[in-house]
């Protein structure tokens, strides 16, 4: 994790070059996170990433520095993704729908799935929770704060997501 404090302070004071450095440093992680959330829709993920950075630029002065800058960016990205999902009705966000519709397909129908394809079968909150806790390497507490949910809820998403992935990847595992 990089220490962005100096660059954030300069960018908040209006230093365009410092902001450009922050974007360069974090673009890959943020776009990767959003690509996973949007189930591989690169164009949508990049649009959301750009909106995220512009919102961050507008609100830089509000960044307290209590958490990491990366976590703050991921929180904005998650909120942008949720807004876009509701606006476009991309996919169900609530728990009940996924449970009743059977979000996890039978293993036989998902043979040869790789991890990214398997992720597409998870609910958005499960994708976000697993990605932040494992691939990004956040502690559960930080991930919960980033996603704006209680710690217990985050842990449930992680556990449910892992179980689903286990089933989905069962035939794929060596």
């Amino acid at each position: 994790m990089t220490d962005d404090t100096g660059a954030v302070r300069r960018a908040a004071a209006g230093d365009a070059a410092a902001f450009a450095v922050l974007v360069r440093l974090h673009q890959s992680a943020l776009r990767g996170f959003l690509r996973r959330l949007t189930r591989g829709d690169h164009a949508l993920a990049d649009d959301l990433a750009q909106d995220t950075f512009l919102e961050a630029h507008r609100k830089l002065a509000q960044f307290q520095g209590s958490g990491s800058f990366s976590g703050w960016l991921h929180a904005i990205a998650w909120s942008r993704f949720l807004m876009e999902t509701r606006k476009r009705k991309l996919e169900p966000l609530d728990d009940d729908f996924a449970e009743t519709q059977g979000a996890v397909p039978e293993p036989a129908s998902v043979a040869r799935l790789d991890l990214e394809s398997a992720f597409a079968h998870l609910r958005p909150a499960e994708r976000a929770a697993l990605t932040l806790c494992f691939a990004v390497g956040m502690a559960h507490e930080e991930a919960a704060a980033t996603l704006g949910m209680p710690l217990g809820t985050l842990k449930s998403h992680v556990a449910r997501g892992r179980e689903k992935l286990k089933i989905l990847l069962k035939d794929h595992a060596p």
Partner: protein
Amino acid sequence: MTLDELLSQPLARVRDDGFSARVALAALRRRQRRQTLLLCAGLAALLPPLAMLPLAESGDVLAASLAGAPLQPYLSLLAAGLILLWALRPRPFRL
């Protein structure tokens, strides 16, 4: 490889391909738009008080005094210099 090991692999690196430059440019444009709006709002706020001032009379008095002033060419040069400086001002000072 276990599921946890698979999940713990970092996200695939996304190549920049001009993304950062586009974002930085968009942020700069937005900032400039905001500054222009603020300037316009400031000028608009100044207009009503200006309309109340007796500028026509003051202008006549100023013109008459400048016409008789021995330093008139120097004042003209100074004004021209200031206008040139404003036109050629360095980029960071532009709105």
